[in-house]
Structure formats: C-alpha cells, structure tokens
C-alpha cells in the first residue's frame, strides 16, 4: 500500500499511472488534504487520517505558523496551566490513531466522578463512571502533552503526511460557489493556498484548523456569530489535601469554577468570573489565590438532600477537597471568554474544524472534544469518498456527511452550555430553587442522568 512506502517514492508512485509528464509533475505538487493549523485539532485530523486504510492513501499536508511541539512537560514537574478534559470518545480516537500511549496516565489523570453544585446549596448532580458501567469518565491532560503525543505520532508517519512550518496562511482561492453552469463545469478546480512566503499549494480539500481567529474562515468569507460573556477564565495549577478523582464544578454567583485532577497529584483550576474579579484574582499570590478557591468551593451552603427523592437512586454529595498553592507551578493566568460559531463549516473544497468552526464556554471541558468529534466525522466522510470514488472536496459530500451532522451536534452543545451558564447565573429567589429541584431530579433519575452523562462523555 502506498501509505507504507517511504515518503520520497510517493511522487514517483503517483507519476507511474499519470498519462503525460506534465500532469505527473502537476500531481506531485498537489495535496489531497491541506490542513491549516497544527494545533490539537489539526494534528488530530492528520493522525486520524493515517489510521484508516482508506484515508492513509491520501496525501496530507499540515502547516502552521509555529513548529509542532514535540516535547511534553517532564513527569514530576508541575503541569502546564492549560489542560483539556478528554472524553472516552476522544480517547478512542487517539487510541486508534496510535497517539494515546503518550497521553495515557501517568501523563494524564483519569477521573471517576463528576459533581456539579451551586453556591446557594440548591441542589447537586453527581455522576460516577460506575453508574454507566465504565472504568473512567474521562481524562485530564495538559494541552502540551496532547500536542506532543500527536506531533510524535505524525513524525512517525512522514510516509503520508508532510509538515510545513513556519508557514503562515495569507490567501485562499476556492472554486466558485454558485451552482451555475460555469461553477459546475469548474467544480474540479483545485483550491489554492497562498503562504506569506509567496509559496502556493494546491489541494483537493483545505481544512481550516487555525483556531478561534481562523484566517481560513475569514478568507473563505464565512460569517460568524459570537458574543462575549464579559467574563474571563483564570487557570491555575494547585495541590489538593487528598488525592483527587473527581471533576468538581461549582456555579458561583459570578460564574463556574472547575477543579480537575491532573497528573502527579496536581489539580487544575478553571475559574470563570467577571472581568473585575478576574483582575483581582490574577494579581494575588498563589497562596492567596488558593485561599480564594477554598472559599469559593467550601463557602456558601452545601446542598441538603431532597426528601422528595428516593434515596437508593441518588448518589450522595461529596465535599470538595481543600486546595494549596503548588510549588514550582506557574502563577495563575486569565483569558477572555466568548462564544463563537461559524454559520457554515464548509465551502467547495473547504471544511472548518475545531475552534475555527466553534468556540464554546470552557464550562464542561467540551471545547476541544467538539473539535475531536469534528475530526472523527470528517475522517468518516473522507473514507466514504475514497471508497466510492467521490471527490473529497465536493460540496455535497462535505455538507451531508460532515457539516450537517456536526452542526446539529455542536449547536445543541453550544446552546446547552450557554443555557446552563445562564440558568446558573442568578443566585437567589424562585429561579434558584427551581433550578435546585431540577438538579436534584437529575441526580435522582438514573435514566436521565445516564443520558446526560453519556452525552457529556461523547458516547451518547
């Protein structure tokens, strides 16, 4: 199989069935898939394409303005501030792509429970992996560990993927969009990617994986909708008084605070709050910051059991651990929070994936997992195209087999996360008690709970 051959012979192989010399030469400079951006999602796509016997015959390019990170933070040292929650579905994607081994514990931390509650003590939800018959609910890994594992895997697959960096996207020419005669007859026209260096690349499919401020999206003239939460997220690495196996999330008056286990007994705080509060928290010493986290987690009222619900079907509320400043860790940092979605994810010969297509509130740790689910869907669509002789950049294919299923999924996740956040904002009065009841009902109803849980874990 072509994918097994060393990289240099690929051009020759492609030439061997080309009819004329000139078309053979042209073939050589054409990529099947050109991925703009080798972040977590773009790299994951390249890895995943190499996993299936159908798609590993494609010629893939990854380009990024920055070099692909190849080195993880050393074990034993304090973890990086930026971490991601990986759902079992994402873990499966990485396993199949041969990249999981370098992300698996001890490089990441599994968690068995998830507990969500609010500051007013109005109710709680606690999920356990055991309830769904699974060993873990997910893993938390530093972004850098994920990146390095994917980067390492890609370097092992130079038989099928090329890298270009530093390479900055500057222009993009796609075939005409309007379904008129002219556009139809030209629908084989390849996309052209222009780089800042002046170099151009032709591709049958361009994938925009260049993050929230996607230049690909702009150049393709795709409209976006977005709003700012007028909030910032603060991330920090901390220690906990006892080993942590739970993803904790508490809704405070100002926004949600999450405490997630990371490797080597560390935990990660992601605290979303008002801009002013964020500025105050960011200026604190790590010790003072830990104190604030403890007040936020332990203060207020803890939920009482709802006497209306049967005891046997609900899991008990667990008190969160006390946190301490972690020695050797970087001090806490803040970043702006926003919601953003691209109206369309596809054009002829273009697909957007990851943050380029959608940015959600980091609330449920779903952000990057939505991107990994995009990857899975796109790989399936391309495998189908290869199998049935379809053009991998054909608009109809991208629309039906990638955009439409992903947009439905992402839109419901975006509204769910946005809705959840908004519902939790007001802390007093009727709304809060209704909400409290709602949470308790979820905790009590195992069917509903399992559904929500599976959804959050990406296995629904």
């Amino acid at each position, binding site marked *: 199989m072509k994918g097994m051959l060393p990289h240099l012979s690929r051009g020759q192989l492609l030439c061997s*069935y080309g009819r004329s010399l000139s078309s053979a030469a042209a073939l050589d400079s054409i990529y099947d898939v050109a991925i703009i951006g080798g972040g977590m999602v773009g790299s994951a796509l390249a890895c995943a394409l190499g996993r299936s016997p159908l798609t590993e015959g494609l010629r893939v390019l990854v380009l990024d303005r920055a070099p692909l990170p190849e080195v993880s933070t050393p074990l034993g040292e304090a973890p990086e501030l930026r971490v991601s929650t990986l759902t079992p579905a994402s873990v499966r994607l990485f396993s199949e792509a041969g990249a999981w081994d370098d992300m698996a514990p001890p490089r990441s931390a599994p968690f068995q429970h998830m507990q969500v509650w609010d500051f007013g003590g109005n109710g709680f939800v606690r999920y356990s992996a055991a309830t769904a018959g699974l060993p873990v609910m997910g893993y938390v890994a530093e972004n850098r560990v994920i990146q390095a594992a994917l980067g390492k895997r890609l370097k092992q697959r130079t038989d099928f993927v090329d890298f270009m960096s530093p390479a900055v996207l500057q222009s993009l020419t796609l075939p005409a969009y309007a379904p008129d005669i002219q556009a139809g007859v030209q629908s084989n026209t390849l996309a052209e990617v222009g780089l800042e260096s002046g170099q151009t690349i032709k591709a049958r499919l361009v994938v925009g994986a260049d993050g929230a401020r996607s230049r690909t999206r702009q150049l393709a003239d795709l409209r976006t909708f977005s709003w700012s939460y007028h909030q910032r997220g603060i991330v920090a690495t901390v220690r906990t008084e006892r080993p942590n196996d739970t993803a904790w999330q508490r809704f405070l008056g100002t926004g949600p605070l999450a405490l997630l286990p990371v490797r080597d007994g560390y935990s990660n705080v992601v605290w979303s709050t008002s801009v002013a509060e964020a500025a105050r928290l960011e200026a604190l010493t790590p010790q003072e910051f830990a104190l604030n986290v403890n007040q936020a987690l332990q203060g207020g009222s803890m939920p009482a059991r709802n006497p209306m619900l049967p005891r046997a079907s609900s899991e008990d509320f667990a008190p969160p651990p006390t946190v301490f400043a972690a020695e050797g860790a970087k001090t806490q940092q803040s970043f702006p929070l926003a919601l953003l979605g691209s109206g369309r994810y596809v054009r002829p010969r273009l697909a957007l994936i990851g943050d380029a297509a959608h940015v959600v509130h980091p609330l449920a740790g779903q952000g990057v997992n939505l991107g990994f689910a995009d990857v899975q869907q796109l790989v399936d669509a391309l495998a189908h195209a290869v199998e049935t002789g379809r053009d991998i950049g054909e608009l109809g294919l991208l629309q039906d087999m990638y955009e439409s299923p992903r947009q439905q999924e992402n839109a419901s996740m975006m509204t769910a996360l946005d809705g959840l956040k908004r519902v939790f904002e007001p802390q007093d009065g009727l709304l809060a008690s209704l909400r409290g009841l709602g949470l308790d009902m979820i905790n009590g109803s195992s069917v509903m709970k399992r559904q929500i849980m599976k959804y959050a874990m990406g296995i629904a």
Partner: protein
Amino acid sequence: MSMGAALSSSRGVHTSRRTHDVPQPSAAGTSAAAAQGPAGQSMDAQEVAKFEAMASEWWDPDGPNGALHTMNPLRTQFARDAICLAHGREARTVQPLRDLSVLDVGCGGGLFSEALARLGADVTGVDTSATAISVAATHAQADPAVASRTHYQNATAEQLQQQGAHFDAVVASEVIEHVSNVPEFCASLVALTRPGGSIVVSTINRTNRSYAVAIVGAEQIMGLLPKGTHQWERFITPEELQEHIERAGAERIGDSGMVMNPFTGHWTFSADKAVNYIMSFRKPAEQQRNP
C-alpha cells in the same frame, strides 16, 4: 478545448441536431472513431437532441441531473464491487480499480467516469453527444489525477467495437433506455469486454410504478427531468436485459434495485427493482479461445 468553447457549443444545442450523425473530434478524443462516419449508430436522433439540451448542466448538482449526482456514489459502489469480484480484488481499499481499463458507454458529462477514475481505473468515456463529451473533458481537465485517467471520445459503442477495442470492464448507466436497437447495443457491450471481464448496466424498469415515478413524477410533476427525457415503452425489464446480454455471451452475476428517498434525495440499494435497478455480468474467460 477551452471552457468558453465548451460552454458556447453547449448553448447552441437547442437549435442544432446535427451532432448525433456527424461525430465530431472531441476535446480529449484522439481516437480514429471520432473521425469515422455514423456506422453502427444506435442512438436515436431525437434522443440525442434531448440530451444535448441537458449537457451543459451535467455538473450542477441542483440541476436537471441532480438525481444522477445523488445516485452516483451508489452505482459506483455496485460497479466497484462487481469489477473487483471479476478481477479478484479487494473492493474497499484505496483505488481498487487501479490499472484496469473501463469503458463508460453514454458517459454524458463524465460523472460516472470520474468516480471510476478516482477508484484508480483508466476510463474511456464515449457519448454520441459531442457537447457532453466536451463538457466531460473540460470538467476532468482541472484535476490532473482525474484528467490523466479519463479519455473521452465522441463515439458509439458500436464504433469502438469496429475498432476492435477491449476493456477489462464495460459500464452503461442510464443509457440503454435511450437506445434504439437494444439487442445490438447489448452485443456491443459484451464484444467490448475482455474475456473474464465484467459488464455493469443500470436503467429503469418498465412497470406501472416506473411510469408513475419516472414519467409522471420526475418529468411532469417535480420537473426533475425535462419533459420527454424518457419514453416509457423503451424501458427494459431486468429479465429482458438479462436475456439480451446472456444471448450476447455473458452471464448475470448479480443485481439490485436502487431506491431514492424523495425527501432526502438519498439513494440506497433495495430488493425493489420496480423502478431503478443495476445488474452485473461476467464474460466467461474461455471465450478467449474463439474470439
């Protein structure tokens, strides 16, 4: 041929019915067939004119050939599996048809030809409409991988047969219902196939339902196809098709109905062959001894 030329020639087709009886040298066609006369012509003059009116819209997925666009992946899978079976290849791989020669009779704008070329086949597409051929060649041109594996000729199956051409597989999709001499056409398909090779034909059955769906539904109510695209009396039943091809010396391997969901436009294989169906045949290898 340039894009402009292809388009302007296709715009003129309404008023010109000459192309069917004077095969013209095509964009990609360098074959001697193109220069030959209309001997063996089995396409009916009016049929050709009707199709030419559509030629320029072959590649618009929302245009009059939209149903062919949505059917294309399905017929491609069927042909892929049939050809792979005949040649002992693994079908669900990268370019399973690599290096096999395939003839697409009645290739139109090249939809089926391009899909087969993407599966690795070296495809010759022939059509009696010079316009369709130039549309096909123009379309293929933009992607070198497709261009290098597709060769289009303004010719009939009968003309190729006279040249003594042979292919590892011959496909004729949605074309036999427009042909005036079906037994002769079927004989050409078999004659053009190498011993041991496969033949794939898809068409519309002649049933009450096909009348309702293809004539009343698609042409008259939905406007999916221009009126007069099909003549129901010309439709061929699976039994008739099998008989014609087997008489010409190939054996039936398998068949399937193809059904479109009118709401999603999505096609699936089905046991129901009352409207669209596809059938595969194999030319026995022993015929090699007496060509």
